[in-house]
């Protein structure tokens, strides 16, 4: 089967409107977690979040000129990131729209960021809003499919917080099995009352900036953003940017509880183990782990236990959610880009806000930006419903 190479990347998050801007923030340890500026919620000013620094109107006008009346913020973020990825890859318009180019998107919110509108349309007898076809998860991928006239296989995945890690995996496999020659893969998420209130109801939102893997951590901060990657077969990559290759992947289920991991971290352990097996790397070949590291009591302890079970010596690891917040359906793709940046530039981005290790596990993440030799990076994404996914990227 063909080796899969990443030939283009695009990204927008609270720490930058492009891959380059994001890297800059990561290097200089500038977090995007702060107070909500644009989204209307009772929690603005109360719960720290990592919001993209543009209003929906701004994003709409920039991408459409004459604003599109039926497009959601989630789709706008997706288009913004996909545009950059496509430009970066150098693929022509014909190549993008070809039947040989697949698109795999991911989101957990979709158009449900529009609480009032969806509530109106769920009950109104007539006069629906312009968003009638924009609420579902597929609407984000469909916005991209329509914009680029994509005629290849198009798909959307929702496995909660591991969604876009799975979209990367699915896209890679579509290529390897001949359903496509190349794939644009990723995910998008925007702030929504639905997720703010949902996570808050579960008592896992922190009222402070999150502190992944810290002894006194007390929850996550929600974030928003989007990332897309262009995947191609190695044999098609001459003369293109060869950022990294996708060499390992794992997808396993924790099967313990709908919204938390087993104490031993079974799902995370099995997912990382499978990624190691598919990559045929040894434990000591993993240079760095971009952890799921949400800052919740449950995830960080169970992910730590899983790392300790798998690695005799746990590699350097950090959670970039301390910059971007937890971007849910977009997290897998955003963190895949960060993992690849780490490989390309031979550097590790630190976990912010860490002070003391978790007593039971004692693991300490990387705390300052550092340049070091990086050959293989593991990226973890663990979601509700026990959906655990792990990707391994390697230097080309």
């Amino acid at each position, binding site marked *: 089967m063909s080796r899969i190479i990443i030939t283009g990347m695009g990204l927008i998050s609270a720490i930058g409107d492009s891959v380059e801007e994001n890297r800059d923030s990561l290097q200089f340890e500038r977090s995007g977690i702060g107070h909500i500026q644009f989204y209307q919620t009772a929690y603005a000013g109360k719960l720290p979040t990592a919001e993209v620094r543009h209003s929906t109107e701004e994003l709409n006008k920039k991408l459409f000129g004459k604003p599109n009346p039926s497009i959601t913020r989630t789709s706008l973020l997706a288009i913004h990131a996909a545009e950059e990825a496509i430009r970066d890859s150098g693929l022509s318009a014909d190549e993008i729209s070809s039947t040989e180019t697949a698109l795999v998107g991911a989101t957990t919110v979709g158009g449900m960021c529009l609480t009032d509108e969806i509530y109106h349309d769920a009950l109104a007898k007539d006069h629906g809003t312009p968003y009638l076809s924009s609420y579902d998860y597929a609407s984000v991928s469909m916005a991209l499919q329509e914009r680029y006239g994509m*005629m290849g296989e198009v798909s959307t995945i929702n496995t909660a917080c591991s969604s876009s890690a799975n979209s990367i995996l699915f896209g890679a496999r579509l290529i390897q099995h001949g359903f496509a020659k190349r794939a644009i893969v990723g995910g998008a998420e925007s702030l929504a009352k639905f997720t703010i209130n949902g996570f808050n109801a579960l008592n896992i939102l922190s009222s402070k900036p999150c502190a992944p893997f810290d002894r006194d951590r007390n929850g996550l901060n929600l974030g928003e953003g989007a990332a897309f990657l262009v995947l191609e077969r190695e044999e098609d990559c001459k003369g293109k940017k060869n950022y990294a290759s996708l060499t390992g992947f794992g997808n*396993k289920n924790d099967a313990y509880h*709908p919204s938390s991991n087993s104490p031993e971290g079974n799902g995370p352990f099995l997912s990382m183990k499978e990624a190691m097996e598919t990559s045929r790397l040894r434990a000591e070949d993993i240079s760095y782990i971009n952890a799921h590291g949400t800052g919740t009591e449950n995830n960080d302890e169970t992910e730590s236990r899983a790392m300790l079970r798998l690695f005799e010596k746990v590699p350097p690891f950090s959670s970039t959610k301390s910059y971007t917040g937890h971007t849910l359906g977009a997290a897998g793709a955003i963190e895949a880009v960060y993992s690849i940046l780490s490989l390309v530039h031979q550097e590790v981005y630190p976990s912010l806000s860490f002070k003391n290790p978790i007593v039971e596990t004692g693991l300490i993440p990387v705390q300052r930006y550092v340049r070091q030799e990086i050959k293989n990076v593991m990226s973890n994404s663990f979601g*509700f419903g026990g959906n655990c996914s792990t990707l391994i990227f390697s230097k080309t």
Partner: protein
Amino acid sequence: MPYFHDSVCISPQFSFPVTDLSQWRASKNNLLNVTEPDYPGIPPGARRRMGKSVRMAVGAALPLLEKYSQPDGMIIATANGGMEDCIKFLNQILEYNEGLLTPASFVQSTSNAAAAQIALVTKNHNYNITHVHRGLAFENALMDVVMSLKEHPGTSYLLGCTDEISAYNYNIDGLAGCFRKESVLNSELFTSLAEGTIPGEGAFMVWMNNEREDASARLDAVRTVHSEDPSTVLKAFNKFLSENLPDGEMPDLLMTGENGDERLVKYYDLIESVFKDKVPVARFKHFCGDYCTASSFACWLSIQILKEGTVPALLLKKAAPAKRVKRILIYNNYRGSQHAFILVSGVAVDG
């Protein structure tokens, strides 16, 4: 090759626990609802949190998991799964002004709730994924299982899907013009062409692996295309035919997703015309209604037909097939923009 083994289909018709395609149930109030059977295998502790789509999915999966034990993966498709719980949670948000809220409906509203619950109830740690791409979610899941079986010879998968008529998709899709405004029975769907169709719901689960022995049918191919242009759809269809039915071979039956919506007739007429009346046509949406993963009902029907070799009269559009049905081509579209082609063969077919 991927083979379908035992399957369970929970639908508005007589499909489970007993299959009887010689009779059918009428729609009520322009809806084809599922009358849920008992689900003895679902633990009460888990069941109490399940919305209808999750319950149907778990209820359909459990008999198979009891028969076959642990699959090497669970590949589930749902476009609207959990939406009822989404709206319930949104109601709380608005009623209590983002105040103190109960989380259960939030947790259950995630699309992967069905796949997660099946894994949870059976303690299955293997590959687990949920495809949600609207009218092609089921086809994406089929591609996933095709790939998984090639990657891991000797493995077995639980493949399935679920969608329910919830307040969300019914009212919102209704406002978007998807459904008939005037009263219509499912039995009149094709004779009373007008704008819109009637919604349905259901769940389908099937055990799949590469073993031909004891299999019910074989999945030969699946492809999709996004377009509203009929000529583009035709081009994609002809490509599918040339790749999978070479040398002018024809299927023994064309099963289409005609749904009574006059705006979509052009696509079905065009696809049917390719075979110039030489291939009998069957339809399925008067049985199951229209919903995002309705093509799974067509898949289930195809498996039943291939086992028997004959087509139930109630499904036929025109004349019955003259010979035993060994190969079925399913063509479906969702709202005229997402089109899918699935080729399924009986196990007796050579090769």
